[in-house]
């Protein structure tokens, strides 16, 4: 029994010395020659097991999971604050407008100066805050995605700059920021959605006050009732796109969430035939309105396609430019900065590939429909 205990201790001591002390098995066993024959194969097995377990999750998964977790936490906090906020009634875009006006009035020069700042400089937080405000003011998803592409481009320059300066902490933080922005762009473009199973569902709200923003925005104009008061029917005000898409950038992947405070607009079909004896002024030009609305829809669709094509071009350009810049930095950067740079390179390669593939598939589908 005593011998067993002694052997357990020696085995552990050697294991620890080899694993953390940098010794070889032979070096350690030289201290215990009487047990060397018995312990050597066991230590080899233990080390082989440890080596086999030197596995890691896919880097893009790791980054995405972090992004999703932090987004979920942010949402949770926001919901908590929203409950107690005095300004809970105030639309988020209005808050953003106020914020930007105050910011511009109070420190126009500072904001401008911060634009070119690097992560290790004092004004950098101002730069990030300005970016956030600007992002909040962009109403459309594609517009936001395009702005994210611009921000990723800025992050890449910053990463290269920090890598060359050997500023590891800033390099890693900027790499994470770039990865988050790439993820947010993916979510907006539609390649990724926050996996509902991986995240806790938001607290349920009563069905009658929930109207998914997408439905409200994309409801065909023909089916929306004219804005006239109806006794007993509570009408929602018209929903501008900006209000419908008022989520902040990092919350982009939450299409499944209800938007408390936005009431469902009951859609009433326009009657096929207007009453003969009492034609309303609106009944006569109805076909004209239909044509005009169809034109408008077509125009909107064309505009969307243009924006998508523009985004694809920008991304195709960045998909070449960014990896090149990161690879070049990898060659010049000090050893300590290389793991973060490699991660940035890997994530940007994967995300750009996915984004472009998705946008191309969509174009093919759109082409087929035409």
């Amino acid at each position, binding site marked *: 029994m005593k011998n067993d205990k002694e052997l*357990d201790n020696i085995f*552990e001591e050697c294991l620890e010395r080899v694993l953390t002390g940098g010794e070889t098995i032979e070096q350690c066993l030289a201290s215990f020659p009487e047990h060397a024959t018995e312990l050597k194969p066991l230590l080899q097995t233990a080390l082989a*097991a440890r*080596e086999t377990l030197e*596995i890691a*999750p896919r880097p893009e998964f790791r980054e995405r*999971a972090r992004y999703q*977790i932090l987004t979920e*936490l942010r949402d949770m906090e926001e919901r908590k604050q929203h409950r107690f906020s005095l300004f809970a009634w105030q639309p988020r875009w209005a808050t953003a407008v106020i914020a930007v006006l105050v910011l511009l009035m109070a420190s126009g020069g500072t904001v401008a100066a911060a634009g070119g700042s690097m992560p290790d400089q004092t004004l950098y937080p101002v730069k990030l805050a300005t970016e956030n405000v600007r992002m909040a003011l962009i109403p459309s998803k594609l517009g936001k995605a395009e702005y994210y592409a611009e921000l990723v481009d800025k992050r890449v320059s910053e990463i290269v700059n920090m890598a060359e300066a050997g500023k590891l902490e800033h390099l890693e933080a900027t790499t994470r920021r770039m990865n988050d922005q790439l993820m947010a762009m993916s979510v907006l473009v539609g390649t990724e959605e926050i996996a509902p199973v*991986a995240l806790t569902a938001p607290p349920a709200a009563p069905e009658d006050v929930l109207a998914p923003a997408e439905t409200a925005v994309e409801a065909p104009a023909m089916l929306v009732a004219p804005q006239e008061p109806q006794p007993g029917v509570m009408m929602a005000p018209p929903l501008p796109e900006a209000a419908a898409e008022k989520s902040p950038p990092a919350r982009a992947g939450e299409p499944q969430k209800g938007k408390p405070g936005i009431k469902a607009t009951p859609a009433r079909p326009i009657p096929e035939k207007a009453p003969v004896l009492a034609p309303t002024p609106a009944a006569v030009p109805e076909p004209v309105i239909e044509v005009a609305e169809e034109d408008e829809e077509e125009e909107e669709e064309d505009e969307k396609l243009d924006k998508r094509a523009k985004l694809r071009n920008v991304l195709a350009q960045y998909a070449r430019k960014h990896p090149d810049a990161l690879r070049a930095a990898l060659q010049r950067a000090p050893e300590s900065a290389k793991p973060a740079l490699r991660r940035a390179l890997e994530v940007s390669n994967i995300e750009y590939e996915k984004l472009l593939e998705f946008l191309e598939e969509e174009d093919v589908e759109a082409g087929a429909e035409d």
Partner: protein
Amino acid sequence: MQNEESLVQRAKEQDEAALTQLYEENFDKIYRYIVLKIGDRTEAEDMTQQVFLKAFKSISGYKSRGSPFSSWLFRIARNQVVDHWRKKSKRPTVPLEETFVGSGNSNPSSETERKMDIENLVLATKQLTSLQREVVSLRFAGGLSVAQVARLMGKSEGAIKALQHSAVVSLRRMLATG
């Protein structure tokens, strides 16, 4: 420890940099632990994400009691794995004995330097007792020290060393014959 305490304190205040640091420092360890326990790398990724989500959501109630933050994460991971197997047990599975070939009657010494692969290792650890498996998972996959494993499992360091030793003897025998 002092550093970790202030880091956790900041994380409790939802400081994203602190949360990110805790995530970065621990994600791979928890992932390896789960891989070894369940044997499925993709599922282990999702489960690791769940562990961190749960941990960070309830971090305000975390008390260190002298243990590192990772011990708490491993405890959550262990519960997650238990839930996983509970759910799995409701579905029919192929018994491990049918997929793992090996007996103790061949010569183990000739095979020891052979490079293990993760599937064999997972199968081999499933032949261990549950305590041995837990020690191997926490020690070799999670990278915890004997003292940390002892604390986490509520046992003495001596007991953990004995479990570790006997587990490696069994692993060697099984891997050599597998």
